[in-house]
């Protein structure tokens, strides 16, 4: 079974490809949706095409599936329309799949399930990465606000943090928001550190 992954994100495609190889599929190709990707895809004659649901190039791909003479057999999205849970999971995970007519659903389902799991894992990885980045940026802001308080009001680091925290609680704001406001005010007053 030849599987083609169309994906902009090299990392996500690799994560998916590794998963498929581990599961014993070995005829896997990654095609980025750029330039003449449609012609490349036609030459490959895939059985299954996996694509990110969020890719703007889905309309281009579907048009090719409609008009291509090279792909004689019709290709449908999702192989078993009766499997609502599977389709829901795929859309939630952001997977779209095109499958050539005649491929048995038992053969396709594991591929799709694996794609859903890998897409979800990739999304989790991304959001953890984003969270980690945000946390780091927040910590830098809070650190800067603390040192402004320590310098200007001769507070210990612990007291500076306690002051930020109680101000945040009183105003119903996040500590990082109060810290940012303090930095802005301090910059405006020319008291930057």
């Amino acid at each position: 079974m030849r599987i083609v992954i169309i994906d902009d994100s090299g990392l996500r495609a690799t994560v998916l490809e590794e998963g498929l190889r581990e599961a014993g599929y070995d005829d896997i190709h990654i095609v980025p949706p750029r330039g003449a990707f449609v012609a490349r895809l036609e030459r490959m004659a895939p059985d299954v095409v996996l694509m990110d649901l969020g890719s703007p190039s889905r309309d281009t791909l579907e048009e090719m599936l409609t008009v291509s003479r090279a792909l004689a057999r019709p290709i449908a999205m999702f192989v078993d329309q009766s499997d609502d849970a599977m389709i829901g999971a795929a859309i939630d995970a952001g997977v779209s799949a095109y499958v050539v007519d005649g491929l048995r659903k038992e053969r396709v389902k594991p591929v799709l399930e694996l794609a859903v799991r890998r897409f979800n894992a990739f999304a989790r990885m991304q959001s953890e990465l984003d969270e980690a980045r945000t946390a780091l940026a927040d910590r830098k802001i809070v650190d800067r606000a603390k040192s402004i308080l320590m310098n200007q009001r001769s507070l210990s680091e612990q007291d500076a943090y306690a002051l930020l925290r109680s101000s945040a609680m009183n105003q119903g704001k996040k500590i990082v928001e109060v810290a940012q406001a303090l930095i802005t005010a301090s910059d405006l007053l020319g008291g930057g550190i």
Partner: protein
Amino acid sequence: MSDVLRVAFLPLTDVAVLAVARERGFAEEEGIFLDLVRTTSWATLRDRLVYGQVQGAQMLAPLAVAVTLGLSQQPAALAAPYKLNVNGNMLVMAPDFAKALEPDIARRLTDPLGTAHDFAAAIGLWRRKPVIGVVHRFSSHAIMLRYWLASAGIDPDRDVVLRVLPPSLTVEAMRAGEIDGFIAGEPWGSAAIEAGLAETVAIGERIWQRGVEKVLAFRQDWLEANPETVDRLLRALARAAAWCDDPAHHEALAVLLSDPRYVDQPAELIFGALSGRISARLGEAPVANPDFMLFAREATAFPWRSQALWIYSQLVRWGMVAHDAETAARAAAVFRPDIFRRALADSGLPMPGASMKLEGAVSAPMPVGAHRGDLTLGPDRFFDGRIFDPERIEDFLRDFAPQR
């Protein structure tokens, strides 16, 4: 407690009515929290609607018909009780190609038939088939482009290459030389002109003066099961549409749509289509086109069944579906004037008395029969003067140039 309604859209100027219903509180007044879901392809918008991830979608009118007829992946009966706008498309081509056309742009746009013939001649001068981007096989744009090309004897499937790509990728594709021009909703034509990559060749409004564009589509079963929510949403949209049509609001509307959550393009670019003043070529004064895009006036939002049938007639014409009475009836039933009437019965809006009309028969503003108030329909002529009688589809189809 308000109902949460998820509605999918694409970053285009004609998301205006939905965006305003949410941002100016019209939806909230009706107890609806509008959750607008931005998508980047029509395929994904369609899938989200068909598989129930959203309840409604800002959809290309022909795509709603095509999904219902089973022509675009998983078939599903869709229902469109409300048109979000008419007009708003523009065909732009690279300046190199446009050299072969009438150089005076105002004159070029006023004479679509002449321009179509110039275009046909220009194909011979071009060293290869021109590649024209369209946003979808089942788009108003593609149908209008085909109609216009064919009027000058150009076979859109043989003499040019139509390449499908989403609106947001059109400008990059022009820059990369992958396409020679494209037809799309605003602000994408204006964006290509602003970048010096293209100039206007035709304006949708000059091809069909009141061209059906985006509709609000639901799954039919969901629409039937939630009449009260649908009615409240339509009332909110009707008020939002009136707000959008008011010239005094166009600047604020352009700023609202420029937000990254919506169109994410500069407000000045978006303003052109709203105010009907399009810069058709970089560095030239804008061309006045007061009907470039309509949201509310002339009962714009009313889903005339004859318009669904006109779309159907074009799908038949290009061999995308075979004609029979039963299929035609299913296509017509996608547009739901009955729901529009039910929802807006007490709104004070003028309400057309009929559900079908001749399309392309009005050449000057014309008062028509309405259940309430005064309704004046704007001119809705096709540039070639053809008139579509929904009762006589076969005659209409027979009248077109040699069929394949």
